[in-house]
């Protein structure tokens, strides 16, 4: 039970990050490899504002604002000028942005890991199992955010426009959709989700380094591909699946050292068996 709860909450973190990858891929048609580093940015913002104000709620709000703005600025400065350029150029730029963010963080905060003291919510006992309240918060808040995002994409005019741009950018433009604005909104939403992910991540592992975003970033990207990149429910499914697998593997002493190998092994199997991912849709190329 504890393992399942832990797995689901780690899965929620992966899913939140994976959503950023998958939405940007679906709408801007690029792999934003700097996305993982937004988590790191969010973590340092939480650290600094917590030190300055002592108020965790202000810290969380500041982290969401800074990450969202960072996402928009990165898109404007680094990716927008490359609209229409070869995918390889965009990919390399994204990797460059990733290094840039890590280096700047290192300049400001140094490369040593720093501990962060988030409020401890303690544990509660459900049916004889002691579960950390932070795990439950992650699970519930993560679930609410994902439900909210699903409703937003399905039911609002902007959400529909995002789906339309994802399918056919030119046709969306003919409907009067400002494609650049939709891409900007996508980056903003993805980065705000990453801010939440960084908070939940710190609640589990309260220490920060400039490369903090790399591993969860890559895991979440894996989750997005397993679920079917470009698909929002796919990212959620992939994230939760990967989180569960990770926690279950870690709980079994005999296979816990191979956890990461198993996770990436799953990716390879999915790529061999169903390259478009579990919920990925095959899109017919238009002539």
């Amino acid at each position, binding site marked *: 039970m504890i393992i399942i709860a832990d797995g689901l909450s780690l899965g929620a973190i992966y899913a939140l990050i994976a959503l950023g990858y998958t939405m940007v891929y679906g709408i801007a048609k690029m792999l934003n490899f700097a996305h993982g580093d937004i988590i790191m940015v969010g973590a340092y913002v939480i650290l600094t504002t917590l030190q300055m104000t002592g108020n965790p709620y202000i810290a969380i709000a500041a982290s969401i604002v800074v990450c969202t703005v960072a996402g928009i600025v990165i898109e404007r400065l680094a990716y927008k000028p490359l609209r229409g350029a070869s995918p390889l150029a965009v990919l390399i730029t994204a990797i460059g942005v990733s290094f840039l963010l890590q280096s700047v963080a290192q300049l400001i905060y140094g490369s040593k890991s720093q501990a962060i003291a988030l409020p401890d919510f303690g544990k509660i006992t459900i049916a004889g199992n002691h579960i950390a309240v932070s795990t439950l918060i992650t699970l519930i808040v993560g679930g609410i955010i994902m439900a909210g995002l699903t409703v937003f994409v399905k039911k609002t*005019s902007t959400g*529909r*426009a995002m*789906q*339309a741009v994802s*399918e*056919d950018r*030119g*046709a*969306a*433009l*003919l*409907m*009067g*959709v*400002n*494609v650049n604005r939709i891409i900007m909104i996508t980056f903003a939403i993805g980065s705000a989700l990453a801010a939440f992910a960084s908070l939940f991540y710190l609640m589990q592992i309260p220490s920060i380094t400039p490369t903090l975003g790399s591993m969860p970033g890559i895991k979440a990207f894996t989750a997005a591909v397993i679920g079917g990149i470009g698909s929002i429910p796919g990212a959620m499914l992939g994230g939760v699946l990967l989180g569960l697998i990770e926690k279950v593997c870690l709980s079994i002493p005999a296979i816990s050292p191979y956890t990461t190998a198993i996770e990436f092994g799953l990716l390879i199997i999915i790529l061999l068996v169903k390259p478009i991912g579990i919920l990925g*849709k095959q899109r017919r190329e*238009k*002539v």
Partner: protein
Amino acid sequence: MALLEIKNLEVFYGMIQAIKGISFEVNEGEIVTLIGANGAGKTTTMQSIMGLVPIKRGTVTYNGQDITKVPGHKIVNLGMTQVPEGRRIFQELTVYDNLLMGAYTVKDKKQIKDDIDEICTRFEILGQRKNQIAGTLSGGEQQMLAMGRAMMSHPKLLMLDEPSMGLSPLFVDKVFDIIKDYHKSGTTILLVEQNAKKALSIADRAYVLETGSISLSGKAEDLLNNEDVKKAYLGA
């Protein structure tokens, strides 16, 4: 005054010049058709008007306003829209959501609801399949949807790019009937067609496009009887 005026339009794909300085106009209340063979540049012309392909030289004027450099998404707001070649409906959205996308620039919710009701009456099949995923419709039904979707923005000028392409004869007739009907309700039409005979039969005026240049223009009925046009495009 012309509603839409194209002057010395030139479009390039890389080094290749697809449109070699064409000029034409569409007056308010007209049906104008642009006919020509495959690769003559009809679709390129249409796409460049809406800002989907960049214009190298020349101007596009709509309602007296120079829109050559206006981004495509703003052109829709000015009252001009296009049913693109190959329909390009949003395959993964429902019929209803496709129509809502067509009304993206309309802010009045009541108006949108009324328009959808009207379009579902005009195109019965869309009314019956409102909640179906658009990709599951047949080609003809998808063309109906593409036209209905374009009508949702209440265009003053509706451009249609090859609306009869790949359709059964029954649907081809239907499509042309809809265009005639919609024109009667007060919309100016610019129609690009390979089916020259059909297009000329409903149009007021026509231009013949040949490898990026206009080779012939005039009243549609005159072109229908023109010996060269007959030989090249009407299969007579």
